[in-house]
């Protein structure tokens, strides 16, 4: 019985979250709030991946905004072309460019290709970068700095290519989402449900990963990489797998973010945005199953609420959040709750 609870307890928790997000929220929230919740869900999807890479794998990924952006821009390009019509080209290209579309936009007319690209592009990018970094045993802080540098480079590149990617303004003004009119509230609700459903799906996936041999190996790599190597495994492959999965999740989050937010711009994917994604994970508890997702939802909600009432002071809160969480609760708020609970209800005996 006890082991059953331990095995399937997390699954029940995911199910509760699923009911809250997919049944309760659409029923009680106004369309505006629901749309906001959709945005938080997209961040949470990326956060689940960060939890896998950082919490379980010990790789502090400070550039997940890049993969978020790859997915987001891939989706946005498709939506842009859908809005422009079969032979049309995106409006901003007429505005800033000479009215011709770069060739690499063309495949994104196809919805199927776009969906494929949302998965494949980040996977390939993360695999190449990860292979180069992990195989040469670059790790720890070096890895974190390299990923952050990647985010800076990516945002700079986007801003500089105004004719191809909309530059600082990003891509916005989408009208259709795979044939569904985005101005119709029913369709907006559907897009929200897809995002929430994907979040639940990602949670179930990492739940399975965490209880698999791979999950054990990942933790072992985090805690004692050399021992794993001496046991005959290559830690680089383990880390690479986690990094690629995290990148794909970030990309999926970004892909859903574009239609829900109605815009994707460099400020959604740059170094600061990447740090914002990490804030939720740190707050919720990076090594826990639900910690990153719940943390990201909370930080997302906090961001909307605080920037509504104090538009300029939001940065203070984000900064203070980092300092407070890392100083006081390095394992996240969830661990603090657990510790408090153990103080109140003392376990009868130490269970190994």
């Amino acid at each position: 019985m006890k082991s059953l609870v331990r095995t399937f307890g997390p699954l029940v928790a995911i199910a509760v979250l699923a009911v809250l997000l997919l049944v309760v929220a659409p029923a009680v929230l106004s369309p505006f709030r629901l749309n906001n919740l959709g945005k938080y869900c997209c961040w949470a999807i990326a956060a689940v991946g960060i939890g896998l890479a950082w919490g379980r794998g010990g790789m502090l990924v400070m550039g997940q905004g890049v993969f978020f952006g790859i997915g987001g821009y891939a989706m946005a390009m498709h939506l842009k072309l859908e809005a422009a019509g079969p032979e049309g080209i995106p409006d901003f290209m007429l505005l800033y460019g000479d009215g011709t579309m770069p060739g690499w936009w063309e495949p994104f007319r196809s919805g199927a290709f776009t969906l494929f690209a949302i998965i494949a592009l980040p996977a390939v990018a993360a695999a190449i970068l990860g292979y180069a970094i992990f195989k040469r045993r670059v790790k720890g802080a070096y890895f974190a700095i390299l990923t952050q540098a990647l985010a800076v480079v990516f945002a700079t590149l986007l801003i500089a290519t105004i004719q191809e990617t909309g530059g600082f303004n990003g891509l916005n003004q989408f009208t259709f989402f795979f044939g569904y009119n985005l101005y119709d509230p029913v369709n907006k609700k559907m897009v929200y449900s897809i995002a929430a459903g994907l979040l639940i799906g990602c949670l179930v996936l990492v739940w399975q990963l965490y209880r698999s041999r791979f999950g054990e190996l990942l933790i072992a790599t985090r805690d004692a990489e050399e021992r794993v190597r001496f046991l005959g495994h290559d830690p680089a492959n383990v880390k690479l797998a986690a990094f690629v999965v995290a990148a794909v999740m970030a990309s999926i989050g970004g892909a859903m973010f574009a239609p829900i937010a109605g815009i994707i711009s460099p400020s959604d994917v740059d170094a600061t945005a990447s740090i914002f994604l990490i804030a939720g994970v740190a707050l919720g508890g990076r090594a826990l199953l639900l910690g990153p997702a719940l943390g990201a939802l909370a930080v997302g909600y906090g961001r909307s609420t605080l920037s509504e009432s104090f538009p300029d002071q939001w940065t203070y809160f984000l900064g203070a959040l980092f300092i407070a969480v890392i100083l006081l609760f390095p394992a996240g708020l969830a661990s603090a709750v657990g510790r408090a609970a153990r103080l109140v209800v003392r376990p009868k005996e130490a269970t190994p």
Partner: protein
Amino acid sequence: MDSFTTPLLAGTATGALLLIAALGLALTFGQMGVINMAHGEFLMAGAYTAFVTQQIVTNADISIVVALPAAFVVAGLLGLLLEVTVITWMYRRPLDTLLVTVGVGLVLQQLAKDIFGAQGDPVRTPTWLDGNIDVFGYHWPYRQMFTIVLAVMALIALAALLKYSAFGRQIRATVQNRDLAETVGIRTRAVDRITFFIGSGLAGIGGVAVSLISGTNPRLGTTYIISAFLVVVAGGLGQLKGTVIAAFAVGIATSFFADWTSASMAQVATFALVVVFLQLRPQGLFVVRSRGLA
């Protein structure tokens, strides 16, 4: 000829700026394992010190001379404050210091925005730095030469301190083996504090140099911090010469890439260059060898 001298000289100046910024980083990273992401904001603090000094001492010729030591002290004290209040709790947790200082950096940026405004202010160049020298057809501004002189002076001062002073010996002992240093009676925690003060103060001096070239700006730190960290990563820890070579290499390479393509493509190319370089030397240019596994 111009397509060679221009990027070379401008890149050397950029490299000198990166060197000043990276020296402090390499010092604190190498000695304490602390990754200070707020270092860029100390640079910004130095730039704003130059601006404020100029409001008080209106003569630009003199104010810059006052600003240099003032910026060193202001940024150094900020660093000391950070060390005493926050970092002291998280030694041996390098990734956590990284995240905490990210938070500190965000707060400092917003503070600068609230105090001085989001736009940034110009800092007037002293007349003795106004002008340029003709090098193979490139009008090399004195300001850029000043940056290089400043960086070289900071480097010499730091190297001399580390090599010849008793305090420098204590720093080196702490870097090489903290426990043994402690055993022979060095108060390593006190050494850490002073190192942090010096490292942050160097950033302040770098900030003054930046302010002469591009004025002040609340987001000034973020422009330099990543490049400075790439320099530290590529240069390797524990030895100044790695940082020096890497700083000028990154500065000059970026400048050439920018000349051939565009400023943003140059960033991409430099990043790729560092990743490729790490394939050859994963620990950076120079490594202090140890028998440890990690």
